[in-house]
């Protein structure tokens, strides 16, 4: 599908923001400036952007532990997210959640998730709401190759077909679940599992923004038009380890190099759009430096921001006590 110049710029802008955000987190975490567990999305940016560009604010997504990219692609504020990672009071969740629980319901972002396989069942519910109220919205559930082995994923795919829900399941297959290879842990095929449950199922090159964008358009349009749920099996790779601090000893040096040099979705995008003359290199470089600057400011503001205090300890458990 032909994208407008505006869309192309938007896509690259989003991918740059995700890249810069997680590169900054990588750096800050290594410098011991950031608490908690963080899982970075660097290398998988084309998936989040290629899918979320088809979604409006009323559409929803449920994300994973590796959620920063999904959050940014769905429109969460970068500074508010960064503040959350530092545990600050003005963070996107008031510092209560941290990296694994970023959520912004006003943007249709139903939460990252610390429980592997936790998101897709929630997506069923959102999709049921849209079907019941005939809103024409869709809900997208992201999960990893490792998560594909959770019962919750199979249960969700089946339910989505049974009720013909506008739900899209997106398996981001980066080849590993922690230190375990997909080749070892996934019996049969992820794609076949989708087909077996009656989903419109497609395998997609996740390092190619255009491939993701095309495939996503097809299944999201169908879901909006009452044609039921789908599965996208997105093959991609991540640059960093499972979480920050992981020595990545389960991958070879060659593999790490290949991921960085040959499978980088930003590089691939850049090459495509400049070689075909769709965008100027200078336009892209401007987006890169803008994103860098934006994230730099987010980090600075986050470090300066205040922590929550004792009076925040007991709030937010219930609406009415």
């Amino acid at each position, binding site marked *: 599908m032909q994208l407008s110049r505006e869309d192309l710029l938007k896509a690259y802008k989003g991918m740059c923001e995700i890249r810069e955000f997680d590169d900054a987190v990588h750096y800050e975490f290594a410098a011991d400036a950031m*608490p*908690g*567990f963080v899982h970075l999305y660097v290398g998988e940016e084309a998936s989040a952007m290629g899918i979320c560009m088809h979604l409006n604010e009323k559409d929803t997504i449920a994300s994973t532990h590796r959620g920063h990219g999904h959050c940014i692609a769905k429109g969460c504020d970068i500074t508010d997210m960064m503040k959350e990672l530092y*545990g*600050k*009071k003005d*963070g996107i969740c008031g*510092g*209560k*959640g*941290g990296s*694994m*629980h970023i959520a912004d319901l006003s943007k249709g972002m139903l939460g990252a*998730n*610390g*429980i*592997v*396989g936790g998101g897709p069942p929630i997506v069923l519910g959102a999709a049921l709401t849209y079907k019941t109220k005939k809103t024409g919205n869709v809900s997208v559930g992201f999960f990893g190759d*490792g*998560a594909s*082995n*959770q*019962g*919750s994923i199979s249960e969700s795919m089946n339910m989505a077909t049974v009720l013909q829900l506008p739900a899209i399941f997106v398996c981001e297959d980066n080849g*590993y*679940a*922690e*230190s*375990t*290879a*997909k*080749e*070892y*842990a*996934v*019996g049969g095929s992820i794609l076949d599992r989708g087909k077996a449950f009656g989903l419109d199922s497609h395998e997609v090159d996740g390092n190619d923004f255009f491939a993701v964008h095309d495939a996503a358009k097809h299944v999201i349009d169908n879901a909006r038009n009452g044609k039921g749920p789908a599965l996208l099996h997105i093959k991609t790779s991540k640059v960093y380890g499972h979480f920050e601090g992981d020595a*990545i*000893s*389960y*991958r*070879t040096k060659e*593999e790490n190099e290949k991921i960085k040099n040959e499978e980088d979705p930003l590089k691939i995008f850049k090459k495509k759009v400049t070689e075909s003359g769709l965008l100027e290199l200078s336009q892209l470089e401007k987006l890169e430096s803008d994103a860098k600057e934006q994230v730099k400011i987010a980090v600075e503001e986050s470090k300066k921001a205040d*922590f*929550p*205090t*004792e009076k*925040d*300890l*007991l709030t*937010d*458990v219930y609406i009415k006590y």
Partner: protein
Amino acid sequence: MSVKSYRDAINEALLQEMKKDENVVVMGEDVAGGAGTNGEQDAWGGVLGVTKGLLGHYGRERVIDTPITETAILGMASGAALTGLRPVAELMFVDFMGVCFDQILNQTAKFRYMFGGKAVTPVTIRTMYGGGLRAASQHSQCLYPMFTHVPGIKVVVPSCAYDAKGLLIQSIRDDDPVIYMEHKNLYDVTQEVPDESYTIPFGEANFTREGKDITFIGMGQTVGICNKVADKLKSEGKSATVLDLRTLSPLDEDSVLEAAEETGKVVIVDESYPRCNMATDLSALICQESFSSLKAPIKMVTPPHTPVPFSPPLEDLYLPSEEKVYNAAKEIL
């Protein structure tokens, strides 16, 4: 004897039991790691390296990396236990019990009773619990009261490296299902630990301090807090008893009552949510059996009734601390 960390003590217990009994198998997510990769095998040895090295000794037949599928992991371990193996299954974080509780709640814990006393299910479920790592609401819970609530499963909460080894060996040899809970803040705590294997019997709480003015009761990580407060009080001229429960089920009721009666003043320190937790349970027991020996209301030091917050200052306010325990003690001393 040599100085070992809590982590190494657990690792050594597993190695020794695997050597002693070929029916002992270890299973879980990334318990070795590296499965199916071109990189290092035994790449992780568990998320915090507790099972590192088992693979080199016993191979992938007995050190089984599993897919991410907790229901199947616990079910497989229990089924194997029921039919001749003696599995040690790992549930990486106890919070993930939300995914697979049925396998304990309705299956494993009830086999023996429902089957009229016929089943023998020698399964050990190792799991990591507790706060302090800024791991937020889904990776920091204690949840041991939930298991203690369920008849048919034993609940073990070692507080130190010595106990970690002896209680794990006991867990593995025990013919009943056991959930063995490792506090993630204790892994690097060290102590003299015997090199040979030994067991610590279940249902025998441990007096780590003996005194006459006040009694602290702790479990797992909170025992260390109690010990420190007891030592501080000692320097102020007050002597304290500290009781480490070691196992929550079976519960050493006699020692709990003895400890309470000794001083008549009791502070219970429990890191789990405050409603229906160990602190409330022990309080009820003490009030019922030793009411007349109490000289002050029982104090419970627990977190508030909220999920575990992420933000470091909030988590610090949330968790039981030496300061909170000390202040609670001062109120009744």
